[in-house]
């Protein structure tokens, strides 16, 4: 396959994915901003106003961690329908099947990228830190998160073809992960004797880095390396499952 044809394939598949998921481009854009903002508002109300958590600058705190978190969960949650929703194409035509998860992940990444101005608006309003580190930090975190998200999509999309009830397990898993990740609370609240665990967490270092990048203009190198390692690990795992199972897609779908 030539690079030119690969580009055409991704272009057409992306167009299809956007069309099928959001009908109109504008709706997809609005939704990708409205959804995390609504959650941020809800959590602000519940945790700040009602439960009175004492985290500093909580609005910016929530926005800068919920946007990347939403990106991650969107890509994971859509995984069960990634292949099943494209059964008719897979059964009839030969094209690299891994492209569908890649395109799904690209779509969510694009939606995140276009919502960054909203985060920046919050940085401005709530006095976050504009920093030169963004120039390196944002692309680095985007690349790492894209690797993790697309790998997880590929992995769960592949497995769901064979285990149709995986979707329910995934929902529970995401819920679990959400509370096990410092999205709503600061990692400093984690008891000292558990602090060392953070660096082995698949998502936490990434979310913490996004937040500190927007709030303080800093990024932690060890956390970035941890995320990168998770990316490589998950990519290898997803590729392994895909190689073993993808040739059966057409007969099982």
């Amino acid at each position, binding site marked *: 396959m030539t690079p030119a044809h690969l580009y055409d394939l991704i272009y057409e598949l992306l167009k299809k994915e956007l069309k099928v998921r959001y009908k109109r481009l504008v709706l997809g854009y609005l939704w990708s901003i409205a959804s995390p903002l609504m959650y941020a508002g809800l959590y602000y109300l519940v945790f700040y106003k009602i439960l009175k958590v004492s985290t500093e600058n909580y609005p910016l705190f929530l926005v800068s961690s919920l946007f990347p978190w939403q990106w991650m969960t969107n890509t994971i949650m859509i995984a069960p329908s990634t292949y099943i929703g494209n059964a008719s194409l897979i059964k009839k035509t030969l094209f690299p099947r891994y492209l569908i998860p890649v395109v799904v992940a690209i779509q969510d990444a694009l939606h995140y990228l276009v919502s960054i101005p909203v985060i920046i608006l919050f940085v401005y309003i709530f006095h976050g830190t504009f920093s030169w580190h963004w120039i390196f930090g944002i692309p680095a975190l985007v690349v790492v998160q894209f690797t993790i998200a697309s790998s997880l999509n590929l992995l769960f999309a592949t497995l769901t073809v*064979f285990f149709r009830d995986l979707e329910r397990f995934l929902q529970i898993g995401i819920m679990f992960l959400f509370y096990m990740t410092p999205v709503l609370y600061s990692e400093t609240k984690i008891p000292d004797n558990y602090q060392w665990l953070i660096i082995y967490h698949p998502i936490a270092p990434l979310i913490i880095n996004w937040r500190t990048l927007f709030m303080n203009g800093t990024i932690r190198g060890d956390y970035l390396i941890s995320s990168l390692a998770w990316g490589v690990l998950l990519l290898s795992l997803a590729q392994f499952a895909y190689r073993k199972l993808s*040739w059966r897609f057409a007969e099982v779908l």
Partner: protein
Amino acid sequence: MEIIRFEHVTKTYPLYHHFFSGLKNFIFNIPSAMKQLRSSGFTALKDLSFTIQEGESVAFIGRNGAGKSTLLGLIAGVLKPTSGTIRVSKRVSPLLELGGGFHPELSGLENIQLNGVLMGLSRKQVAAKIDEIVAFSELGEFIHEPIRSYSSGMNARLGFSVIAHLEPELLLIDEVLAVGDASFQKKCFAKIKEFKARGVSVVLVSHNSSDIEMVCNRVIWIENHKILMDGPTAEVLPHYIKAMT
């Protein structure tokens, strides 16, 4: 020149109850699930060997569930054989089956663009042909409607129109002609004739003997997962018709 070669091809479908009843059941029944995975499953085709030469047009016939669609899937490369080797030396058209290779939520037009690219054309090439494809399909305004609103005949029209304009070297057709109306069938046969004149081979699955007589000079009869008879149309078809009635 030989364009398709099957050597001792066997295709077995595993029995997937344990999978489809879900992860939960699979985990709770690992020993029996594993045994089931390793057990033989259902054999759709058994030790099939044949070759098809350039310029030949072949029909596969046989009763429902004989394995004809499976055979086309193997030729198209969408399915992989359990054992044996398959060699196909031409650019194969995508499988033309009932239900088409289309995405139900996209319009006919969008599906043409997507399908063309999935079949290996560039977006430019598809764009250059799209008017011709739409005209051939005679779908009119419906081309802008989502595929899920199409009748099976409309679906077949779109499918054939797309494939007819992609310059395949080998055309695989699984029963789609049967659902088109008389005028569209006529158009399809004219197109197929044109292809054959250009040296494109056609592999057809059909339950309609007059279609087969019109298109194919060779018939392969599949029965009991094997080739029961293989020869010129005039020879094999009468035997088959007799056996069916």
